[in-house]
């Protein structure tokens, strides 16, 4: 991959975004952040990230709806989406879309990086 991989982090909790970005920035990745689902979708369409970290419980447009639109949009549907959920999110209910993986918040930096690298590696090998 010639250019720096772009990672889009969509989460409404500014402190969590701050702390998580710090971990992701330790790698040579470009980190984009969005604080709600709508903003996240706009950034995704404009910037074409290589991977999305998506919070599920957000006001205005929650992670379910964002992921659904990712699935519908031809240009976005190939992008791996890792869903971030807090412990008590309703994980058991069937979702109307497929995300690549669910990550439970909070996640230890080492584990988060491993997951992100795993999916970046997969898209690398595909392109």
């Amino acid at each position, binding site marked *: 991959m010639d250019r720096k991989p772009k990672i889009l982090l969509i989460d409404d909790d500014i402190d969590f975004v701050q*702390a998580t970005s710090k971990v992701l920035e330790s790698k040579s990745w470009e980190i984009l952040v969005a604080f709600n689902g709508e903003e996240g979708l706009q950034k995704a369409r404009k910037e074409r990230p290589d991977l999305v970290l998506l919070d599920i419980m957000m006001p205005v447009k929650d992670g379910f709806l964002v992921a659904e639109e990712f699935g519908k949009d031809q240009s976005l549907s190939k992008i791996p989406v890792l*869903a971030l959920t807090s412990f008590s*999110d309703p*994980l058991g209910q069937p979702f109307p879309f497929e995300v690549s*993986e669910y990550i439970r918040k*909070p*996640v230890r*930096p080492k*584990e988060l990086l491993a997951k992100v690298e795993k999916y970046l590696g997969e898209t690398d090998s595909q392109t």
Partner: protein
Amino acid sequence: MRFLLLLIGVCVWLWFAFGPNPVLRSGFFHEGFAVMLLIMVGSVARPFTGGNEAEWIRYLEELVRSERDRVMAILNSMEEGVVIIDLDRKIRFMNPSMVREFGDGVGLHCYRHLRGLDEPCGEICRLPNVIRGKNERWEYIFPDGRTYDVIGSPFADLDQVPCMLATFRNITQRKQAEIELVKLNQLKSDLLSQKTRELEEISREVAKLEEQERRFVRFLRVVAHDLQSPLAATQTCLWDILDGYCGKITDEQRDMLERSSRRIDGLSTLIGDLLDIPRIEAGQIVHEMKETSLSEVIERSVDELSNLAKEKGITLKVELPQSLPRIHGSSIRLQQVVRNLISNAIKYSREGTVLVRATEDEGDLRVEVIDSGIGILPEDLPLLFTDFFRGKNVETRGTGLGLSISKRIVEAHGGRIWAESPCPETGKGSKFSFTLPKVAGPQDSSVNQNRPEPRLSK
């Protein structure tokens, strides 16, 4: 004389056969014919009997009288009332049963005697029709409720006056039973519609309660999220510092931060557990259930805890049969149960092996977690699955809710959970088992690790 007797015989027969009395007439083939035959036989046989004629006549008179007595006896013993009413609506005859019902009214007008009227009944009177030769049947209902089934037939009395012969059968009881039945049916349908209304009321109440429950579950979800979010952010910040993303820290700082991190982890678990209980009790699990692979549930739980086991130097062993039937359940919740059992096994062992095993018997699937740890005190065993219970032989870590939540989850799946200590097979540590009912369906052959499935990790 012989001729005279023959003549009498024929006359008697004719009187029986064609005479005015319909009761006798109806039986003329029996009685009339028999009498005539007797007279005729008597007349023919007389020369050989040698008796005198006066004796014969007395004998025949006796025969006719006995025949009349018999007819009267029939009328007297009839259950039905019999009445003869003539053209002028005067009662000519009443049998005892009729007298019993209405009192003796022979010689009185029928409308006066039977109905207490001063004039004939008018249009409803059937007498004219009957006298004209028709048979009629109708019901008399008296104001006091007595009801009669009446059959009227034309009849010519001995003086050839056209009359009506009527039988009165008292059907008051039957009628009242019919009325009671109608009332009863009305009552039944009233009751039915009342019960239907009550049922509708109840189902409205149920719908209202279900809506309240849905709102409650939504409320809990928001509460859980709003309590967990600040903890997740704080924990992430602490891990950033602990894992060196914010520069170097001293050992003392690390120690303090690790303490904070542990407490936040505990608080987060407690909040999750506390909010899980009402959600499980509100029947939330049922909505999460679908066809699920138990092998996958176990393998994922083991995956999640393999690091913890490694850190403590404990071997985590899994024994799964080649194939297990699929189950109907919530994989997330079942994973919570298996994870809870394995992490307890690891937590309360200092070394050795933790074995996770799944087996299948006739109706159930069984999951067992066996450890060689400190075991459970006998007095603690019955309380193990109650809320906030902590064993007396363990230091007070954990929320005391893990096992009680596991019990709720297993029971919501129609299964059973229990503990044994020491483990009956190894004689040490403890053994936790739970069952799940099987679903009829294809076997779940060994798990395909490459299948892309949403999964959870810590």
